[in-house]
């Protein structure tokens, strides 16, 4: 045993609670500790992932109760891949925000890192857990820290955004709880594997209602249209790195949850086409809304929503190819959208309204940031030879192989729209005259480093996608193999 | 071959003959005389049967026809047009005004004697000369051309300083390109 999945939940949670205490010893520790923790987890997750890819999933039982009675954590290729991705993004976000907004003072910084650690804990927990109620708990942890981070600036707008998030979040909790109750009342168990193995016995009506409630609840977190009203506000009002964390971590975790329910737990085949329908709706509405935005982060937020719609569509094909495409897309989206959020927040750092027009002519003052933003923009719209192309290609291939030509065409049309608004911004950065009262801020060294790491990844994956596709192939195979999951979990005897 | 004196004579004869029978006229319609040109050209008198024909630009023209009184202002343009014409070229003074000023002899802004400013080959007098007179003038010009005596252009070239002096005396603000043919 190289390590245990419990650490992924335990360590960041512990770190989150220790941060205020450590802050009393030495203020810098507040900033340093999360980094150390995340680095350790990064090493751990890569080790575990390597192990898992070779010798099958690790199922960890908590408190000595074997499944289906106790809570278990499953570190399989699929969940391991997502966990690694989240930890990596967490690390990048930490690196970026290490000296972000030095002027905010110690207290807010303390809260920020605390909430960030909790956010990561929650998200990782969602992915790792094998128990639906436990997942609910983790979703709540994620949500609460998310509300806090949204309101970080304690302004009027951020408070409003946070309130919207909170309100929809609580609806989500209610619905989720309701869904869990229905399922529990029918089967008497909360363990995913157990439910999955017994789901065919459930009355179809209950099954469907419970699934609908699950999707609705998780859809709120996963930004599915029309449940995603909170998202644009939250992204726009939260600090830039938090936007990256939302796009890269929280949403991924929620999508994971939906996918887990549809692919593993339930056996309703109609759910796949439903995924495609809502995914397409999300994609189209978000992208068309994005083109008319005048604030940079809001635009990125809509774009992020749209991408998640595309991920759901890709999952909705229900084929292994589709899953592969979706996972690849999630990876690329996490990297690229984070890069866009991180560099974008420096482009509009000192402006009050964060308007798109305020990025005019920024390349002269922030050459590297501008370049990275442009790189990200080119990559996210799927231009070769950047990372986004390969995932888009695999999505389209999957669509064609599933004979969904209509979906294929729509995705491509929407891509054109996406192209337009990204290019508009890039053109502004490079070819417009700088506005009078915009005061560019040079990024700090570690922020730059964080962005360059992401940019380099985009290029590496773009030129040589094989570095990562092997893992994704295994992860998608892992997700598709439902019986193996059930067997792996239920065969554990403590 | 051409240097030979006799053959030169023959060539000259043929050339002059062709010049005589092909007179392209640039009618500078200055004064009232311009009205006499149309009857001369059209069906009643039909100058074209003599080879006389209108030319559109000075580059193509052989004869510059000054039809009537010439104001100082116009003189400048007339000189310019004359200098733009290609050698050999002839000038016909048309009407009394070009000879001695005619009824405008004491006007402050017309010239009296065209010959002082441009080398006139043939004058046609009358006020106005009728088309018959115009045709007779052309006949006279043809005669002079055939005899090789219509050498106004050569005279102008040789006595350029005298002509220039006359011209400059009467035209204020002299800005004209050099004439150095």
């Amino acid at each position: 045993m190289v390590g245990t999945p419990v650490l992924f939940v335990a360590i960041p949670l512990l770190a989150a609670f220790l941060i205020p205490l450590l802050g009393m010893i030495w203020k810098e520790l507040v900033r340093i500790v999360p980094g150390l923790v995340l680095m350790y987890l990064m090493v751990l997750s890569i080790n575990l992932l390597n192990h898992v890819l070779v010798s099958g999933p690790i199922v960890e039982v908590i408190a000595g109760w074997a499944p289906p009675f106790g809570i278990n954590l499953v570190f399989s290729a699929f969940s391991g891949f997502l966990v690694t991705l989240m930890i990596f993004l967490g690390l990048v976000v930490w690196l970026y925000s290490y000296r972000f907004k030095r002027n905010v003072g110690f207290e807010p910084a303390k809260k920020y890192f605390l909430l960030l650690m909790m956010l990561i804990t929650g998200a990782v927990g969602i992915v790792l857990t094998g128990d639906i109620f436990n997942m609910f708990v983790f979703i709540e942890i994620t949500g609460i820290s998310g509300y806090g981070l949204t309101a970080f600036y304690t302004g009027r707008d951020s408070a409003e955004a946070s309130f919207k998030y909170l309100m929809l979040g609580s609806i989500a909790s209610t619905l989720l709880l309701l869904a869990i109750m229905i399922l529990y009342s029918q089967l008497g168990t909360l363990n995913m594997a157990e439910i999955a193995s017994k789901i065919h016995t459930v009355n179809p009506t209950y099954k469907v209602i419970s699934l609908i409630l699950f999707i609705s609840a998780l859809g709120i977190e996963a930004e599915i249209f029309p449940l995603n009203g909170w998202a644009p506000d939250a992204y726009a009002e939260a600090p830039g790195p938090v936007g990256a964390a939302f796009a890269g971590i929280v949403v991924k975790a929620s999508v994971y949850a939906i996918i887990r329910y549809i692919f593993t737990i339930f056996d309703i085949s109609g759910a796949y086409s439903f995924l495609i329908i809502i995914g397409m709706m999300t994609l189209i509405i978000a992208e068309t809304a994005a083109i008319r935005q005048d604030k940079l982060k809001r635009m990125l937020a809509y774009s992020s929503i749209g991408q998640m719609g595309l991920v759901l569509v890709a999952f909705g094909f229900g084929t292994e190819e589709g899953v592969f495409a979706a996972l690849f897309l999630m990876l690329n989206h996490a990297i690229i959208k984070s890069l866009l959020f991180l560099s974008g927040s420096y482009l509009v750092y000192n402006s009050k309204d964060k308007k798109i027009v305020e990025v005019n002519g920024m390349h002269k003052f922030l050459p590297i940031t501008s370049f990275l933003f442009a790189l990200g923009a080119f990559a996210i719209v799927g231009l070769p030879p950047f990372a986004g192309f390969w995932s888009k290609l695999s999505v389209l291939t999957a669509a064609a192989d599933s004979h969904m030509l209509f979906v294929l065409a729509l995705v491509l049309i929407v891509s054109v729209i996406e192209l337009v608004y990204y290019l508009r911004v890039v053109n502004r950065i490079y070819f417009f005259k700088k506005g009078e009262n915009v005061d560019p801020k040079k990024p700090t060294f570690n922020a730059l480093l964080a962005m360059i790491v992401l940019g380099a990844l985009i290029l590496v994956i773009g030129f040589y996608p094989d570095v990562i596709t092997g893992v994704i192939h295994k992860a998608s195979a892992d997700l598709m193999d439902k019986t193996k999951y059930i067997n792996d979990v239920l065969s554990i005897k403590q | 071959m051409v240097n030979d004196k006799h053959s030169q004579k023959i060539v000259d004869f043929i050339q002059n003959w062709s010049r005589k029978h092909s007179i392209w006229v640039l009618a500078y319609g200055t004064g009232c005389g311009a009205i006499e040109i149309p009857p001369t050209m059209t069906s009643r008198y039909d100058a074209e049967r003599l080879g006389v024909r209108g030319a559109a630009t000075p580059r193509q023209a052989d004869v510059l026809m000054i039809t009537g009184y010439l104001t100082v202002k116009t003189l400048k343009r007339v000189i310019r047009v004359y200098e733009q014409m290609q050698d050999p070229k002839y000038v016909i003074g048309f009407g009394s005004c070009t000879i001695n000023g005619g009824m405008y002899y004491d006007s402050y802004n017309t010239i009296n004697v065209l010959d002082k400013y441009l080398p006139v080959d043939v004058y046609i007098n009358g006020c106005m000369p009728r088309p018959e007179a115009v045709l007779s003038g052309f006949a006279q010009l043809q005669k002079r051309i055939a005899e090789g005596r219509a050498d106004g252009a050569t005279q102008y070239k040789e006595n350029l300083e005298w002509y220039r002096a006359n011209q400059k005396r009467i035209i204020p603000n002299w800005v004209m390109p050099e004439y150095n043919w």
Partner: protein
Amino acid sequence: MEEVLYNILGAVVTFIVAFVVGMTYGGLTRKITARVQNRKGPPFYQNFIDAFKLASKKTAIHHGVMHLMGPAFLMVTSVMTLLIVPVLAGNNWFPNLNFHGDLIFLLYIMTFGPLGMALGAGQTGNPNSAIGVTRGLSQMVGFEIPWVMSLVALMIQYHTTSITGLMEVQAQSGTWLMLSSPFAFIAAVMAMFGMFRYSPFDIVGAPTELASGPVSENGGKFLFVMMSAGSVFTFAKLTLYVDLFMGGASNLVVLLIKTFLLYMIPVLYGVTSPRYRTEQAVRWFWGWPTFFGFLAIIQAVILK
């Protein structure tokens, strides 16, 4: 080698014949115009006198190298057209380069000169010249359409694009193409109005308005070469029409009669017509002539 020399000699003879005939036709046109206007008119050889006079002008100005080359460009077109068009079928003294080119080539070489000339006119810097050139080119776009339609109709009907091919067709069938393809002939003749630039299509060189347009800066020998080129070109074009539509000619007399009759169509139409503006002219060509061109093509497709 001997053959080449013989060809060159023949070409020179052809050129001289074309020059003489073209000039005479020009003189006759002036005479006819005069008679229509109830004048006596100049003698029919007046054009020769004019040409000789122009050639013997002592001076000539030019505005640069393109201006110098303009007349030569024009001459290339005329002579090349003359060489490509069979003047007399089967006569050794009028050799031609017909086997070297076909109708499409002819169409293009016929535009070579006007364009080169236009460049020369452009370099003079005279605004009138440039205006004349654009009018001329516009008009060319106008009349080329019915002209090409008529040619295409002939080509597709008889499956050949060469002039000799079309002449052979006429020789074999014994009927002239103007009788067997009347619409093509009508379209071509109407296009010819524009080609010869007589009234009502003479706005290109309108003497009083544009000061003779493209040639306004040319005098002396420039004008002489242009005039000769025009005459030769006239003859070449007439010969082309005769070859295409009237079965060609086996001796000079027949050729002269045929060309003269053909030539009278635009001349007589011209002397009785006022002048069109450019866009009117262009639209005129895209009206009835093009309609006849369509009819010609339809006929060709049906009879193919």
